[in-house]
């Protein structure tokens, strides 16, 4: 059953459109990247999905029906800006919020210990939240989000403020959750993050859909006819290359429409040029977004 189905969603605040005709869905075992610049309408979309606010028009279905109170036990939500009850210990906070999602205390404690162990926080479980670093607090909030084993997980900027080590830990856990069949929405303005994790993406700007579909298909459709090379020595003029773009440590060779990358590689070999890197150029999501939106960020 589809975890989230959104149909023609509209929302505006005092005349300003926040969400405009959004339609998308998320299936179990899928990680959908909800991406776009700051102010694109990602958080508004999430808040409508979570029933924090009503849309002006359109429909949201969770697990095949309009959201009800019982569904809340099956949803885990990590908000963008995060905080904790300062006077509670980490474990008390986790157990309290797990209990609000209908989880048995003993089971919650068992699962909390596993997650704390995975994130390297087990020794800090009795530490009061006010004494924790920002990163530690964010790990605890992430654990709170998934402690009750929800079927639908919504993560709003989950890596914001995390150091590389913790980012990697959280990425691994997210990957495992997807393998377990959870439906995950990952909202972020850091488009490079979703490239590693997501199956599909919904890119929005000014509240409207810009791109929606399979990440590989999207990247393929935006694939440029060029190669990125790093060589020792001068390349010189190559037949079939119509333009060169020099970067810091590489050169992008823009190919003529009928030139295949293999021909360029062969030419370089023939000229006995040492090749350190030869890569068919695929655009990043950021570049795709800039291409589409023309750099018109909010």
């Amino acid at each position: 059953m589809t975890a989230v189905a959104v149909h023609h969603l509209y929302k505006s605040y005092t005349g300003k459109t926040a969400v405009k005709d959004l339609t998308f869905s998320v299936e179990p075992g899928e990680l959908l990247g909800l991406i776009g610049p700051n102010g694109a309408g990602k958080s508004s979309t999430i808040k409508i999905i979570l029933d924090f606010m009503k849309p002006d028009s359109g429909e949201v279905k969770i697990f095949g029906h309009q959201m009800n109170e019982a569904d809340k036990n099956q949803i885990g939500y990590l908000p963008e800006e995060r905080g904790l009850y300062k006077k509670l210990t980490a474990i008390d906070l986790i157990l309290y919020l797990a209990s609000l999602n209908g989880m048995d205390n003993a089971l919650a404690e068992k699962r909390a210990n596993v997650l704390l162990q995975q994130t390297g926080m087990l020794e800090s479980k009795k530490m009061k939240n006010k004494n924790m670093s920002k990163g530690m607090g964010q790990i605890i909030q992430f654990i709170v989000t998934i402690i009750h084993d929800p079927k639908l997980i919504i993560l709003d900027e989950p890596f914001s403020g995390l150091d590389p080590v913790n980012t990697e830990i959280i990425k691994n856990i997210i990957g495992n959750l997807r393998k377990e069949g959870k439906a995950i929405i990952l909202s972020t303005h850091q488009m490079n993050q979703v490239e590693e994790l997501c199956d599909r993406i919904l890119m929005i700007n000014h509240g409207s859909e810009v791109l929606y579909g399979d990440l590989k298909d999207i990247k393929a459709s935006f694939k440029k006819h060029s190669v990125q090379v790093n060589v020792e020595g001068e390349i010189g003029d190559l037949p079939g290359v119509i333009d060169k773009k020099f970067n810091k440590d590489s050169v992008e060779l823009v190919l003529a429409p009928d030139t295949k990358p293999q021909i360029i590689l062969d030419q370089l070999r023939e000229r006995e040029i040492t090749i350190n890197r030869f890569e068919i150029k695929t655009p990043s999501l950021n570049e795709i977004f800039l291409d589409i939106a023309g750099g018109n960020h909010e």
Partner: protein
Amino acid sequence: MNKTYLIFKHEFLHTIKSVSFIIMTLIVPVLGLLGIGITAMVTTLSEPSIEEITVIGYVDEVGIFENQTTQGLIKLVPFVSREDAIQALVRRDVTEYIIIPLDYTSSGIIQRYTLEKELITPQVKVEMIKRFLSVNLLEDKVPPDMVTLIVSPLNLEITRLNEKGDIALEQSNIGNIIIPGIFSLLLGLALMFGATTLISGLGEEKESRLIEVLFSSVSVRQLLISKVLALGTTGLLQVLVWLISAPLLLSLASFSGFMTNIQIPVNFLVLGIIYFILGYLLFAVLSIGIGAISSNAREGGQLSMFYTLSSFIPLWFSSLLFAFPDSSIWVVLTIFPITAPVQTMLRLGVSDIPLWQIMTSIGVLGLSIIVGLFLSIKIFRMHMLMHGKRPGFTEIIRSLKNA
């Protein structure tokens, strides 16, 4: 387990473990004990021994004041001339002296001389000197037993009857106002504490965005009703601690001679608990509305001053209540929900409150809580996600219409 109960339990335990709640709850019995102790100590230390009888000199220029020179703990010593009296005062043989001038019987003026810096003459001395003068003035003119009566002609024994003409259970007494007066003050403080606790908790949850995490698990109604009930129970626990400590304090007070004439109005306990709970619930509901529209806890605290300070209005005007207990303004304040708890408690000690006023007051309070909760939930639903910016009045009205 029921989510409302889980939040209720969390909020209740969180509040009663807070330092401010513990201080607020314990400070009443502790201050009461301190007050009784200090009063008893001051009284004991201030009681004069036999050797400490006050000696006042007097110069009788009229020539008729020579008897009854010992009045209570004051002994009046005659001097022939003003100079002798001054010398005695300087030598500290007397603490002060008075001159009864020649024209006293026509002017009634007595001159008093003392070394002490006093704003007013102590009432005990005034009374004793008065008795000394009266007794001597009346001597030989009326029978001795009449002299005592004339000097102290009024000793009122008041008995209050009920409407059937029987002796009323509750007699009028200045001691009646003490317990309701203290209770109404504590009630006002407790309501202020409760409102502040709720607003600061909501502020913390809004600022940290924990409110969003909570609302992804529970409904707005569940969260807010749990908070209101938890605060009400916290208040009830507080008042129970005070009520349990009250008999001990009262017996200690009576034992120490402090406040010996205290009576508790018959319906005070029942109405006290009812108004305490209703007051707490009303203030909790108002605080939710304020918490919803405030951009942070500090702003919420400032906005809540409107109703927390208003609840003290009856105490500000309590002296007028004692002087004019039947004014219709007290009826208005008894029925107006924000002032009703404190005003009713105060009036219980001063006069009877007609049943219709109490019923109307409780009814209006109850209705205000229900309507307030309904509106507060609506406002909260619309503005719960806002932080850093307070909605304007028109925006709030619009949100009430659209919610």
